[in-house]
């Protein structure tokens, strides 16, 4: 066991830090410290380009597809430095962290060559079409349909919670391609261009007042027959593989964002004297500990993954961070007191911490609710009996 980094790795850190600093104090100073996922989309698209140009967009990918073949330690280091530098959330995080790795794992050579470099260069932004109105946590209950017409797949149906679809060029969607199939069978994993008449994106207003999520309607939408990952009917396998990628190195970048949020809570507590309140101190200490344990949990998981072992504790990561962040939102409001509940400015535009309080309620829901996560842990990691499926529609 070893937690430190080698001198070579520290040299890599210095290189990454220097590049990030020069960009974020230079041409991209305007997006430094941005935390919103939806503000300044154009400038963040520029930032995706710049990262791609300099080879920092997808450091763990093969060089052939625009990555830099970074080792696990280097990926960890880059994630740390990226956040430390105050670089903005990746506009294309779904492309970089979900679509890309899935294409890398399941795509043909042609698909890799077609899609990966475009992601790495920041040219094509992606979003994800999984959930449907009737099937929030129940991925097997997909009703969106697709069928072949000539050289195209034609798609009909509706997806929901398609985060960032309003900025995206491509959506990957699970659709039922086998008529009359049920559950996980007969599904396919399609890659679909967003900018076409058959695709409509309609924002969903959240309890924050903002609209990061969307409903996406497929109404005779088309994509070329080649844009399917795996064979027709393999959609479930590909989708389940993708769920694994949600727990990659990107978790570390995410944690650095959490670090900034916790720092803001601490700063607020110091400013208004709540830092002296023993009850608040305990809760801040718990948040500090929880954040560190997420970090070291991720490093354990990544070390094992590099050695080809799946650490079953990886199954606990989603519920950990979601619950941690929801608790942080509550803590933030308790630190701010009534001041956190009002703002003198324009409607619904709450500052970062009150917004976190509201937004974080979604963290324990999307990407598999806490309840689904506990089922998964109990059934897959602990070997307990599966919940029986019912036969209600």
């Amino acid at each position, binding site marked *: 066991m070893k937690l430190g980094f080698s001198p070579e790795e520290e040299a890599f850190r210095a290189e990454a830090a220097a590049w990030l600093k020069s960009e974020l104090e230079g041409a991209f100073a305007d997006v430094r410290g941005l935390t919103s996922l939806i503000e300044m989309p154009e400038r963040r698209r520029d930032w995706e380009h710049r990262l791609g140009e300099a080879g920092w967009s997808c450091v763990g990918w093969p060089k052939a597809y625009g990555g830099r073949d970074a080792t696990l330690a280097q990926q960890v280091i880059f994630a740390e430095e990226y956040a430390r530098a105050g670089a903005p959330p990746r506009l294309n995080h779904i492309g970089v962290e979900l679509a890309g790795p899935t294409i890398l794992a399941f795509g043909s050579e042609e698909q890799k060559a077609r899609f990966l470099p475009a992601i790495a260069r920041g040219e094509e932004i992606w979003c994800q079409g999984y*959930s449907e109105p009737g*099937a*929030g*946590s*129940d991925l097997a*209950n997909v009703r969106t349909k697709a069928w072949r017409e000539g050289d195209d797949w034609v798609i009909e149906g509706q997806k*929901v*919670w398609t985060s960032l679809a309003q900025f995206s060029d491509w959506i990957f969607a699970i659709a039922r391609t086998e008529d009359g199939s049920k559950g996980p069978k007969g599904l396919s994993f399609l890659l679909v261009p967003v900018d076409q008449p058959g695709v409509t994106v309609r924002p*969903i*207003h*959240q*309890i924050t*007042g903002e609209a990061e999520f969307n409903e996406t309607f497929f109404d005779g939408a088309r994509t070329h027959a080649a844009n399917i990952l795996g064979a027709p009917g393999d959609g479930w396998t590909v989708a389940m593989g993708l769920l694994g990628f949600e727990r990659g190195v990107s978790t570390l970048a995410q944690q650095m964002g959490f670090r900034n949020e916790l720092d803001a809570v601490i700063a607020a507590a110091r400013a208004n004297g709540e830092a002296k309140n023993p*009850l608040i101190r305990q809760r801040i200490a718990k948040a500090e500990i929880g954040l560190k344990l997420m970090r070291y949990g991720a490093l354990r998981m990544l070390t094992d993954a590099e050695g080809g072992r799946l650490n079953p504790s990886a199954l606990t990561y989603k519920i950990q961070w979601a619950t941690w962040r929801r608790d942080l939102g509550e803590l933030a*409001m*308790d630190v701010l*007191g*009534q*001041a*956190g*509940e*009002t*703002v*003198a*400015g*324009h*409607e*619904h*535009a*709450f500052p970062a911490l*009150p917004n976190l*309080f*509201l937004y974080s*309620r*979604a963290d*324990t*829901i*999307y990407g598999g*609710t*806490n*309840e689904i996560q*506990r089922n998964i842990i109990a059934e897959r990691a602990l070997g307990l009996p599966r*919940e029986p*499926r*019912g*036969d*209600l*529609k």
Partner: protein
Amino acid sequence: MHFAFTDEQGMIAETAKTFFAENATSERTRTAMADTGVDKLLWQTFAAELGLAGVAIPEVLGGVGLGMVELAILAEEAGRHTAALPLLASLALAAPAILAGGSDEQKAHLLPRLASGELIASFAAVNSDGTPGAMFSDGTLTGAALHVPHGASADLFVVATNNGVAIIERGAPGLGITPLTSMDQTRPYARLDFGGVAAEALANPREAANAAFTTGWLAIAADALGGAQACLDHTVAYAQERVQFGRSIGSFQAVKHRLADMMIAIEQARSAVYWAACAIDEESDEAPFAVHAAKAFACDTYTHCAGEMIQLHGGIGFTWEHDAHLYFKRARSNASLLGTPDWHREQVAGLAGLDEAA
């Protein structure tokens, strides 16, 4: 000893339940939220037609002459629908302050108009809630009050400072009122700036402040009780109807148990609220303990239930269109307004004798 509604109280509860269910609809609440946070028609009906704004004001002063149990019943039912009414500000804070601390003239001048709904009043406790504070001296009020509930809609303010309790009217020279965008838009705050406002003193400031706090804490607790019960009711209904994995989600034991936990807490909150109401009405020694307990427990229960409501509704509960966030945000403002649950428990700790010598 009879710890259940009397027949008359039962009728008031039924009336209030029906009234709010029919009138305090989500649509009307949302219209008020986008405006001043007061559903004016609802307030008009509540105060003028049903005469309920004077529930705890004596009959000789234009009220109904009932007590805290009846006030709690109204606040509970309003809370059940996150009604956009200045019930807390006017009925449960300003009116009791004037009733307990005003001179006969002040009472006769103001209370009938509060009871009829002609005037909306609000209340600001300055200094005690961490605001920059205000001074009331020589009939002049200076300073500021940061979070005055329904402050932008009020015609009259009762301002409690360390030096006394003052009454000022909306148009008073030197009074600045800044509406604030508030997380809970059903009970928005305003900031008041007192630039040397000439203000009238209440005769018994200590009595006035005590009455306002006691009644306000109770009313918030009752509002929280009604809100929490609504969160449970809506979530039970959704759990019975929503199907996932071929089953109603209410058939999943983990969901059932969490709904049971909500009910367990709510039933305790109900005991707390009506215990506190009775204790005030009966002038029991337990009243201070009971009111702090009710405010702390009912607000925690509401926070818990509103969070569970969002969680157990899944994505739909996170949308603006769904009412879950109205409860969630009102639960937050109930908890932080006039003392957090931690603060109220700290008062209970003192009352429980923890500061006595060993």
